[in-house]
């Protein structure tokens, strides 16, 4: 479980995240949704510690991340996996080396153990026979999958995904969404997914936090999202034609 309190972040005099608090539970993906540029990535980066918020605390199962010393921070870091928007694969390493990388630097496993774990994770994300391909040789969807494999290879307790579907076709998007959902359930970990894709919201949105211009305006499940009574959320939800045709049903 991850708890955030009063996260606030501005760049210069531009307030990007405005006092956001919330709780992200284990086992099911937690979605942070909102239009582009509303501060979702900044919020996610504040949670994982890539950007220090001006105010606010983040608790990883009770451990205060920003209040900890360096060693505890590293300990927490080593329990988390993150999927970046573009995959963020190391382009000088092939697929296998990319996925093995966290094991290389964070564990003392033998090569055989690492190999086995890497193959298991690649299989888990539905990739086989691509071990020796370079990131530049595989498609966007495959990069995302390799990114997921790398994020879960060291059996994290926390998984973060920034726009796992951006740049993917609808079919691949669903595959990736389901994969993230399955992994969260199977491993029983805390997963936070940032997205602006209504398909994902309606697919895996059991727990949703809606952000608008840096503020949390709504929280709930996909079942309630169409009748939240929040105007900004309605605008976001019904910007999609398919969703709009369902309006009022």
């Amino acid at each position, binding site marked *: 479980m991850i708890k955030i309190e009063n996260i606030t972040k501005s760049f210069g005099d531009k307030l990007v995240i405005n006092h956001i608090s919330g709780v992200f539970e284990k086992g099911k993906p937690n979605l942070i949704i909102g239009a582009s540029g509303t501060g979702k990535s900044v919020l996610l*980066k504040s949670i*994982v*510690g*890539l950007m220090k918020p001006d105010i606010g605390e983040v608790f990883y199962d009770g451990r205060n991340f920003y209040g900890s010393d*360096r060693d505890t*921070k*590293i*300990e927490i*870091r*080593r329990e*988390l*996996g*993150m999927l*970046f*928007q*573009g995959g*963020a*694969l*190391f*382009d000088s390493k092939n697929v296998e080396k990319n996925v093995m*990388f*966290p094991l290389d*630097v*964070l564990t003392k496993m033998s090569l055989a153990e690492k190999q086995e774990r890497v193959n298991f994770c690649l299989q888990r994300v539905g990739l086989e026979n691509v071990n020796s391909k370079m990131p530049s040789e595989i498609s966007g969807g495959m990069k995302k999958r390799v990114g997921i494999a790398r994020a879960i290879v060291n059996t994290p307790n926390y998984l*973060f995904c920034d726009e796992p579907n951006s740049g993917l076709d609808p079919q691949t998007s669903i595959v990736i969404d389901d994969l993230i959902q399955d992994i969260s359930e199977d491993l029983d970990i805390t997963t936070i997914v940032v997205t602006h894709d209504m398909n994902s919201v309606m697919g895996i949105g059991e727990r949703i936090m809606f952000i608008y211009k840096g503020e949390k305006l709504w929280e709930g499940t996909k079942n309630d999202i169409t009748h939240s009574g929040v105007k900004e959320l309605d605008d976001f939800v019904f910007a999609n034609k398919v969703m709009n045709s369902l309006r009022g049903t």
Partner: protein
Amino acid sequence: MIRDIGQYFIFLRQVFINRETFITYYKLVLEECVSIGIGSLFLVALVSTFMGAVTTVQTAFNMVSSFIPDYVISQVVREMIVLELAPTIIAVIYAGKVGSSMASGLGTMRITEQIDALEVMGINSISYLVLPKIIASLMMYPMLVIIAGVCGILGGYLAGTLTGIVSPNDFVYGLRSSYNEFTITFALIKSFVFAFLVASISSYKGYNTKGGALEVGISSTQAVTTSVIAVLIADYLLAQLLLAQ
């Protein structure tokens, strides 16, 4: 400007604290050595050979008095190549080739979030990415300078003897006369300083890239410009410090 310099020193501090294990760096350093050393070998050899050749021809052209013996030409060529041309001019080329590729490599890693990916794993990305580049640069650049010195003198010899400006015997005699060991030491001191400056400044510029592909190009250009300026300033300061009587 002052702020930039301050941030550069904070960056350097990050390079040397909170390091990963030795074995992690060992492999990274070797990889960097290959890309820095082998990658620049041809260009350095080519440039220094021609530099030596041109220096010889021009020195001969300027020595109009028949009172000056021919061997003085190779003596002058030796001093110029070893003291200044090999360490300094090659540093400019090194900044253009190695510095720019370090900066664009790190800049690309920054904008594609590869650096964030390292940080999320709890790795000190500055130290992990930059320290191997600095160490590899300190190891390879002095070797490149030595090679440049040899190629430069060889180029001078070929140009001088093939065109008949100076006889082979005179050229070799000149190379060996009034030789001062300290010029070599001085050239090597310069090489270490320049190697450090180019690698650390270029890494700093690349690591702190913000934005997109365009900014990667800008960082890379800035890395070259700033490293070259730093090299020239350091060149002057070192000459003052170590050569002034």
